[in-house]
């Protein structure tokens, strides 16, 4: 199974090492897929998933969720709003039907966990603990479903509590995915670190809204939704920078990454790895194109590994 992909060969030929250690798990490269913007079967029709450092799954709940009514998607200036509402077929379906396909590729699997309550989070984590997924990413931040986590991600207490409870149930590394819709993201990150989170990922979507002035109503049936894409990148970079200075655990940085240079921006801000989200809608092969651009950047400036990029940053 382990073999050099096309782009890995390019990196190797240039003497560039893209690997990164994330809470004890080695990713071949820092490129992962942002939860909810990637589907192994569909994405694999466009590129070789073995190019990825890790695939991060859609949010998985304990039972199937229907999600929100349509329209679920709106386009904004350099971004988009979604209110999918975490539609998903539930953890049992995931383990039986989706995980085996994903395992065919030479890459790590990070399962994204959704829940309306601590009990729900826990039951997903317990089920996934029995599988061979490599890490778990707990989404305490999705703003789409009222009970879907917004309360957890916006208070230090609740964030701590979820972290504590899920950590008990698994030996797999736990990544806590943080919401940007807070006054002080650094203190939320510190709270989850204190409870043993192995890493944090940020940012999830900003809460946004768009009104159709011709139809005279919100574009999205759910009224508000999660705002993502290149428009939000300055907020994401700022938050990664702040969190890097507040915690010692690894950070997966995301929010508006479209190019290899955007990846560098996140690495310099303090991210250990990154995820590509909305970019994969504007370009289905974005993760691999971005990986190639990252290599180009490193070659141009003579960087041999990711740490050298981080060390070069003055700020």
């Amino acid at each position, binding site marked *: 199974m382990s073999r050099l992909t096309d782009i890995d060969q390019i990196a190797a030929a240039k003497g560039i090492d893209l690997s990164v250690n994330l809470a004890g798990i080695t990713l071949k490269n820092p490129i992962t897929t942002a939860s*909810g*913007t*990637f*589907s192994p*079967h*569909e*994405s*694999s*029709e*466009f*590129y*070789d998933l073995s190019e990825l450092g890790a695939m991060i799954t*859609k949010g998985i709940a304990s039972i199937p969720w*229907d*999600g929100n*009514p*349509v*329209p*679920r*998607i*709106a*386009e904004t*200036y*350099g*971004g*988009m709003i*979604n209110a*999918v509402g975490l*539609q998903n077929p539930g953890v049992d379906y995931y383990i039986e039907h989706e995980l085996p396909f994903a395992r065919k590729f030479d890459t790590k699997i990070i399962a994204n966990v959704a829940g309306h309550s601590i009990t729900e989070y826990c039951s997903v984590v317990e089920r996934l603990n029995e599988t061979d997924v490599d890490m778990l990413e707990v989404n305490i931040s999705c703003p789409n479903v009222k009970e879907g986590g917004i309360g957890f991600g916006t208070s230090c207490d609740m964030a701590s509590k979820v972290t504590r409870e899920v950590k008990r149930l698994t030996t797999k590394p736990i990544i806590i995915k943080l919401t940007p819709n807070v006054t002080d993201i650094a203190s939320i990150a510190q709270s989850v670190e204190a409870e043993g989170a192995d890493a944090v990922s940020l940012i999830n979507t900003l809460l946004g809204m768009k009104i159709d002035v011709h139809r005279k109503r919100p574009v999205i049936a759910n009224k508000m939704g999660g705002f993502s*894409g*290149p428009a939000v990148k300055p907020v994401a970079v700022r938050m990664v920078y702040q969190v890097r200075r507040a915690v010692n655990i690894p950070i997966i940085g995301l929010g508006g990454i479209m190019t290899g240079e955007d990846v560098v921006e996140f690495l310099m801000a303090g991210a250990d790895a990154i995820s590509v989200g*909305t970019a*994969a*809608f*504007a*370009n*289905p*092969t974005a993760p691999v194109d971005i990986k190639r651009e990252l290599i180009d950047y490193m070659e141009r400036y003579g960087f041999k590994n990711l740490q050298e990029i981080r060390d070069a940053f003055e700020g």
Partner: protein
Amino acid sequence: MSKQVVNGKIIGQGEIAPMIYKMIIEAPEVAENAKCGQFVNVYPESKSTLLPRPISICEVGETTITLVYGVVGEGTKEFSKLVTGDTIRISSALGNGYDVQEALVSVLVGGGIGVPPLVELAKHIPGEKIAVLGFRDEPFLVKELENLGVKVYVATDSGKVGFKGNVIELIKAEGIKGDYFYSCGPKVMLKALAAYCAEVDVPVQVSLEERMGCGYGACVGCVCKTKANTEKGFEHKKVCKDGPVFLGSEVKWDE
């Protein structure tokens, strides 16, 4: 990696009705695998319009595909400005197209910018073919369908051309009958047609539209409700991946 995004080359573009454009794109990799009723994602160049624009395949040539689209917003405005020789980023043909059926008389019902996919469809349908097309004001693609041996009826909202009224009224007025229906157009029209077909007990395939994120099945943004044996009596299917064509009878229209 059965799918890709390619730089198609525009070999012809023109306005065929007010604000309706026909674009012919040289893209062998796309044409090769394209079927009637499928669509392509067209990617605007502008960075402020991030998302792909799904456009139905109107015709498939040896190495070309033809798109017919209305200019309604930023993306389609950008496309309309392109000229012969320019490139345009399009995806492989996506979704499940029409499932062509044996029938003595097939009826193709189209509304506005839902008419385009019926052209390629007409090429593959056996037997007698009737098209019932509704427009606001100005019909288009009528000649193309007639050239394929289709008997075409036209309705316009304004009555400017053909029958004044909608396609269902026209079908009833003309007593148009068939043993299989295919359709594409606005949701209200599809819903009314599905109800009509249920009434006269004829199967109908409808091509749905929904706002898309990815356009290839990754984001679950574009769902429709179909009847299912679940607690709530429905399940969400992806228009871009499981559709855009569904049986009229499987769609839960009440939403």
